[in-house]
């Protein structure tokens, strides 16, 4: 089901890109996210197409990476569909997928993986320099190999995130 959704998402994105008749605009930025697992700091790259503004982010968990000195990377893709789009204000709603992973125990072999599927909104305000805000809710899957039972363990739970950031329009 997840593979089907990902294929559908890629096809839709491709279709959206092919259907554009205007030159896309790009933005880069950074944001801080409030999240149950950690506070995330992400670096983002967004393309503004006709109907959607896909965003790719890479980041790290602040608590784990900086205060606990265990690098906790985060990768994300968001596809907000434009509801309001003016020269200064943008509002979009859409799905996002996030993946992060962490080795809890350096003495062990097991890596913990999380993948997250959420729906939310994204707002940006400004012309060249923009203030961004968004939030999303959905569910999160955690998966790891138990070294005690030698079996894969997976759990799902409700997840959410709220973020604030700044971005810069590159053109």
């Amino acid at each position, binding site marked *: 089901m997840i593979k089907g959704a990902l294929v559908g998402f890629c096809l839709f994105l491709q279709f959206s890109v092919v259907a554009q008749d205007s030159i896309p605009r790009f933005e880069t930025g950074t944001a801080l996210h409030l999240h149950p697992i950690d506070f995330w700091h992400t670096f983002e790259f967004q393309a503004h197409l006709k109907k959607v503004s896909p965003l790719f982010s890479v980041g790290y968990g602040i608590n784990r990476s*900086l205060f606990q*000195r265990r690098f906790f990377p985060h990768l994300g893709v968001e596809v907000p569909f434009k509801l309001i789009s003016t020269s200064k204000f943008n509002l979009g709603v859409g799905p996002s997928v996030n993946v992060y992973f*962490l080795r809890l*125990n350096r*003495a*062990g072999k097991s890596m913990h993986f999380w993948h997250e599927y959420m729906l939310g909104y994204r707002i940006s305000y400004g012309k060249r320099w923009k203030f961004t805000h968004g939030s999303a809710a959905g569910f999160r899957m955690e998966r790891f190999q*138990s070294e*005690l039972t030698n079996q894969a363990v997976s*759990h799902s*739970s409700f997840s959410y995130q709220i973020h604030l950031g700044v971005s810069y329009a590159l053109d």
Partner: protein
Amino acid sequence: MRWINLIFICTILVACRKKETFPTVQLLGHAGMGLSQQNAVYVDNSLESIELALSLTGSNGVEIDVQFSKDGTAWLFHDFKLDERTNSSGCIAEKTDEELSKIHYKTLKKEKLIRLSEILPYTSESHIIILDLKGFNACTNSYLSNLESIENELVNFKNKCKSTAIFCVTPNYDWMIQFKLIEIPFFFETDELSSALAAIENQPIEGIVVRNSKFDREEIAQIQATEKKVVIFEVRSPKGIRSALRKLPDYLITDDLRATIIEKY
């Protein structure tokens, strides 16, 4: 773009710095994966929470809250009353096993209340199980007096459990000394060093359970010098976890098991 790369590289470097380890401290999940923790996944004292805590590499066991039903069976539940967090009301001690088996938590996943015996399949020889005995009945405002029944229930659990390290905890000294069967070692919970040392002198207890904020390293060492063990609890934030680990207790009961495993290893 250069400054973004620089920040990223600096983060990785900071994250990969060598850090101290604490090989002698054993980690236990508080009521499973933690009490009132956002990232605990399941509610405290549920079977799912305990199973997850025991399956994490680096976790040495769990501390769970034990109360006794009207039928004398041991059930796992933290609060004095059922009202706030479940679809029922009253106290565990006032309910029969049949009534308790229908109760669930008011959470998204509606985890059920479980008997102590239900965790038996998830324990192993390497696990430590600490049973926090909640002997106070808030509905009658008194401590449970059917001690023989309680002891039989606990010894029955101990005989069936694969874990060889099972301990009981209580903060009520007068109630603790009434237990005649000493097959299961007791820890005494206290906030004062003088009370801890007095309990050690007067009772054959295994050790002392203390809050992280109430005892420093010297006081813990003083207790350990009497050849008794020390358990620290009430540990949540990474800063709190680090301070608790540095006190070198024998056991650390943590509300954030994942963060504690990261700190220890």
